[in-house]
């Protein structure tokens, strides 16, 4: 039991304590604490990752004195550690990019709360990533929801509160289903620890009894998490929530929160239900179908949208559709593709959000396309960043989006039944992405005759630009040298089972 094995638990606890402490601090101090915390946690997860890669096997950390099957456990494999690290990076960058905006959107009295929520969010995310206990997972799901809700409505206007309300309702429905699923699972197997449940499930599956309850459970779990991560039919809350909250919240919500749920789902599929069992149930096909629909309809509503932030939000509906399509493919490759897309979408989408805010700021704060015309000349960096993001979304080589498209397609080809629908929809949705993103890019690069808005100087946005650059680099790295990451994912999935 090396020192490093404590790191996951420590980092979760750190986050919680940091949250509690900074609730008593001024906003500057809170920000420092938060920044240090995130980077520290990132460092810890990096160490964990290194350690695991070195030992080559996942480790289990028993919380408290009770051993399995009663006690509560944390499990850290390659994938978990990597996810934790990645989440930290994204969070750090999004906060950096959105800081200036935050300052003038949230009144000073509340700013420190923002960071408190952020700490809690990180804590819950880490817990979701690391935990080996389903009920703990549920609890942290709820915490996650609450924190996210706070992040949405920290910016005080009617829209955000309404959005928060809708968000709460949807995710409560989701977590209700999730909880129900957990209970039935517990009823079936009599365990709460993932590994134990899994072996029980395996026996049940072999014995062939309780087919119906097992199916119901799987359905409940998947649907619950699907609702929480805004899969296509349940995405009503998403555009408002992402469109009107302050930018870094939007970035983090879209790229981390929903991804956390998806990651949990993947974990459940592998470590609780078991891949084969899950694949046997027809739930995969449902997820697949909804994923495809999401890809199409998300993009279509994005095309109809006339407000850049909401457009990006809708595009994340489409992207989540991609991920579920990958899961629904029901193949190892599909799963890898989905996980890679979680990464690349996280990188790209937060980039887009932050770039978009830069563009709207130099367009008099208006987010209508008509106002955005030529804004890329007023804020060059944001323009470039937005272009990069769009290209990545459209799936142009060199950027991360292309690789995930590649992986998805390759995964699809290996499944004779789902090959054609997947590929065709992939192609169509690429065209749709091209339509709305490229439309925007062309517009922001169309110069205007009368200069009604003044452009922003570089020195006023050093941090912003730095964040953008990091995002771009991240994107290109994912796009160009994706092989090691893909290997990592494969290794992690192997460790799951």
């Amino acid at each position: 039991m090396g020192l490093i094995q404590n790191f996951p638990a420590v980092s979760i606890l750190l986050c919680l304590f940091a949250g509690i402490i900074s609730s008593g601090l001024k906003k500057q101090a809170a920000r420092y604490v938060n920044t240090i915390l995130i980077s520290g946690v990132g460092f810890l997860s990096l160490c964990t990752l290194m350690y695991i890669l070195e030992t080559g096997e996942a480790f289990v950390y028993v919380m408290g004195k009770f051993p399995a099957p009663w006690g509560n456990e944390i499990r850290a494999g390659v994938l978990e550690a990597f996810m934790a690290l990645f989440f930290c990076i994204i969070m750090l960058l999004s906060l950096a990019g959105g800081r200036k905006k935050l300052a003038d959107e949230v009144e000073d009295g509340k700013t420190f709360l923002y960071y408190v929520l952020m700490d809690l969010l990180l804590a819950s995310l880490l817990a979701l990533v690391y935990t080996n206990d389903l009920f703990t997972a549920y609890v942290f799901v709820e915490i996650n929801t609450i924190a996210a809700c706070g992040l949405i409505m920290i910016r005080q206007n009617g829209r955000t509160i309404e959005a928060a309300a809708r968000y709460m309702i949807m995710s409560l429905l989701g977590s209700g289903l999730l909880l129900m699923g957990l209970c039935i699972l517990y009823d079936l197997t009599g365990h709460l620890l993932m590994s134990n449940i899994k072996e029980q499930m395996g026996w049940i599956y072999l014995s062939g009894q309780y087919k119906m309850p097992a199916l119901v459970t799987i359905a409940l779990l998947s649907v619950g998490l699907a609702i929480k991560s805004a899969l296509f039919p349940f995405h009503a809350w998403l555009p408002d929530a992402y469109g009107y909250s302050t930018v870094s919240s939007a970035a983090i919500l879209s790229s981390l929160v929903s991804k956390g749920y998806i990651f949990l789902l993947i974990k459940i599929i592998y470590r609780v239900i078991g891949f084969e069992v899950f694949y046997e149930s027809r739930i995969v096909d449902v997820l697949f179908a909804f994923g495809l629909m999401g890809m199409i309809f998300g993009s279509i509503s994005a095309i109809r949208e006339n407000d850049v932030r909401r457009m990006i939000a809708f595009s994340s509906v489409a992207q989540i559709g991609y991920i579920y399509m990958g899961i629904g493919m029901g193949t190892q490759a599909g799963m890898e593709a989905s996980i890679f897309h979680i990464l690349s979408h996280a990188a790209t989408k937060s980039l887009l959000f932050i770039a978009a805010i830069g563009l709207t700021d130099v367009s008099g704060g208006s987010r209508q396309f008509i106002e955005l015309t030529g804004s890329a000349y007023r804020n060059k960096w944001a323009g470039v960043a937005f272009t990069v993001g769009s290209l990545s979304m459209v799936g142009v080589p060199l950027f991360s989006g292309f690789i995930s498209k590649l992986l998805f397609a390759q995964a699809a080809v290996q499944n004779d039944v789902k090959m054609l629908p997947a590929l065709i929809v992939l192609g169509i949705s690429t065209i749709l992405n091209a339509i709305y993103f490229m439309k925007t890019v062309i517009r922001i690069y169309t110069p205007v005759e009368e200069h009604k808005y003044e452009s922003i100087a570089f020195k006023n946005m050093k941090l912003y630009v730095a964040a953008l650059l990091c995002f771009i680099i991240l994107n290109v790295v994912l796009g160009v040298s994706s092989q090691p990451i893909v290997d990592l994912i494969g290794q992690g999935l192997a460790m799951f089972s």
Partner: protein
Amino acid sequence: MGANLFSNYGEAVAMILFGIGFGNLLLQNNLIKKIIGLNIMDTAIYLFLAEKGYIENRVAPIVTNGVQSMEAYINPIPSGLVLTGIVVSVSVSALMLSITIRLYQRYQTLDLDEISTRLKKEGL
């Protein structure tokens, strides 16, 4: 199946309640009613858990008059879960209520759709 259903009527009831709560949370327009639905749903789940944990003619797992043997007591874990769940649902409901209050202060109504229509008017 029918006999099964009858023998575990507790679970059956829990499920029905769950359905009611879910339906309310999903379909009601009035926010307060939604929250009530939420609570019904949670409670139904707790009932379900309790049913699972309970074993005929045993007592709650609290050591009274020195009986140590495990056979005397019901399964403690569901109770623990129920407690945790209650805590969670309390906090959640609290948050929902606070949001509701906020919205009511702004818009003098509890109907979400009406609120969103008004927002459209505001053009925010």
